């Protein structure tokens, strides 16, 4: 066994008593021309954690999410999900591995009902291609879709066209669509953008409800959401990890404050 391989094995094997991280990145780097949007990111998140990823403009948060979900191919480095290397896989394969994402700009099907939006996502996990079976025949999928709508607080609007939902309801539907693919890791990209204080509060409650048995990564600018939901926070700055810790630790961290207030 080569020296490199044995080091690899030691790195991958968890230390006794500490559960292996669900998602890990090793020296994840993305370069656009001469600019490093992400520069050697070593990131880990454990199961059932709610981790917030914050940072000022241009810190690399969106780029990070894009890499995790296969939208962007990193220039170098690796992404490991459940110990498996998923670097560079296409978004649909990553989705099937168990990573789901909601988007900053709402990505729902406006001319379908809320239930149909979720049902289509749920379907991707079950039956294969069958052109002859009527969609109403997939009873288990409809039950699953209704359950998801319930958990995002939209069961009363199941038959409503998605275009007619309020903005906050649409964003919650977006989360529901991601949930319906039965992910192990849910990536939420600015879930409360454009929401009023009331709607934001509703979404915070929603995320708390669905957080059982789910690992969640959130990119957010709204600090109230971050402080209330996150178990731990990772702060990015110019493509590097600036700090990591509990909400209290981050609030007290002088470097973080410096970077945010530009002092």
């Amino acid at each position, binding site marked *: 066994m080569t020296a490199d391989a044995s080091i690899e094995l030691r790195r991958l094997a968890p230390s006794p008593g500490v559960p292996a991280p669900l998602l890990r990145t090793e020296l994840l780097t993305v370069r656009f021309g001469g600019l490093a949007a992400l520069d050697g990111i070593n990131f880990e998140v454990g199961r059932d954690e709610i981790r917030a990823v914050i940072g000022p403009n*241009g810190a690399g948060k969106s780029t990070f999410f894009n890499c995790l979900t296969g939208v962007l191919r990193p220039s170098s480095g690796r992404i490991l999900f459940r110990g498996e290397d998923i670097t560079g896989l296409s978004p649909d394969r990553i989705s099937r591995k168990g990573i789901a994402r909601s988007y900053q700009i709402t990505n729902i099907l406006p001319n379908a009902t809320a239930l149909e939006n979720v049902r289509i996502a749920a379907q991707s996990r079950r039956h294969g291609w069958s052109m002859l079976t009527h969609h109403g025949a997939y009873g288990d999928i409809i039950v699953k879709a209704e359950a998801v709508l319930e958990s995002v607080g939209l069961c009363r609007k199941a038959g409503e066209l998605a275009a007619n939902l309020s*903005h906050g309801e649409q964003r919650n539907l977006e989360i529901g669509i991601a949930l319906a693919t039965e992910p192990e890791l849910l990536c939420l990209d600015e879930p409360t953008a454009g*929401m009023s204080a009331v709607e934001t509060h509703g979404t915070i409650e929603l995320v708390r409800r669905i957080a059982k048995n789910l690992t969640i990564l959130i990119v957010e600018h709204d600090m109230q959401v971050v402080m209330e939901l996150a178990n731990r926070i990772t*702060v990015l700055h110019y493509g590097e990890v600036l700090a990591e810790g509990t909400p209290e630790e981050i609030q007290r961290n002088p470097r973080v404050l410096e970077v945010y207030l*530009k002092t």
Partner: protein
Amino acid sequence: MSASPALAEALVSVDNIHTYYGKSHILHGVTLHVGAGEVVGLLGRNGVGKSTTLKTIMGLARPSHGEVLFAGRSITGEPAHKLARLGIGYVPEDRRIFRFLTVMENLRTGLDRHGVTTARKQELLDKVFTYFPVLAERRHQPGGTLSGGEQQMLAIARAMMLEPRIILLDEPTEGLMPRMVSQIGHIIGALHRDGVAILLVEQNVPLTLEASQRIYIMEKGLVRHHCAASDIKVNDAAIHQYLGV
């Protein structure tokens, strides 16, 4: 708050404006004003609606509710090109200089107006080249070949060509090196001395507190705090709450 002009007397004011992007309710009733010759700072985190406020004033976004006033007159819903001619200059967040036009041609888009004599045009150009000597050096270069800092200067210079009474500056220091950041501070000071009002949107707190007479802080589409710049410091509780972590 002492001696601040009433909404109706201000140079620019917005009164309880609500602005949407599609269904996204960005401004939930913003009210603020800028007096003639004043530098007013608008602080807040990403996504709270600072840029949208500027765009609403400039006529690039239409409020669904509320009014925008210029020198006492309602300008709500008027097209941007009329407002530029009225005397509102706009320097957007990503600079948006015309990349395939030369520096001179960029400046010309603001210079070529009705009723401006050739002599006056030359005066304006001379002034701007004194403020920004590097632009004079590069006057025949296409805008897209300029560095980030130079593009920012060009964006400000271009707005100055309109001889505006107020300039809406959207995060001018974003992405700039510290040396350039302080240069922006000097430029704001020079414009203020010239009598041009400025509504400065920024996330750089020290720069804003130093350059402005008054500041507003926004959160989630509303103004949450308003005071004289001299009454607040960088480590104040309000700053921490609305801008910190």
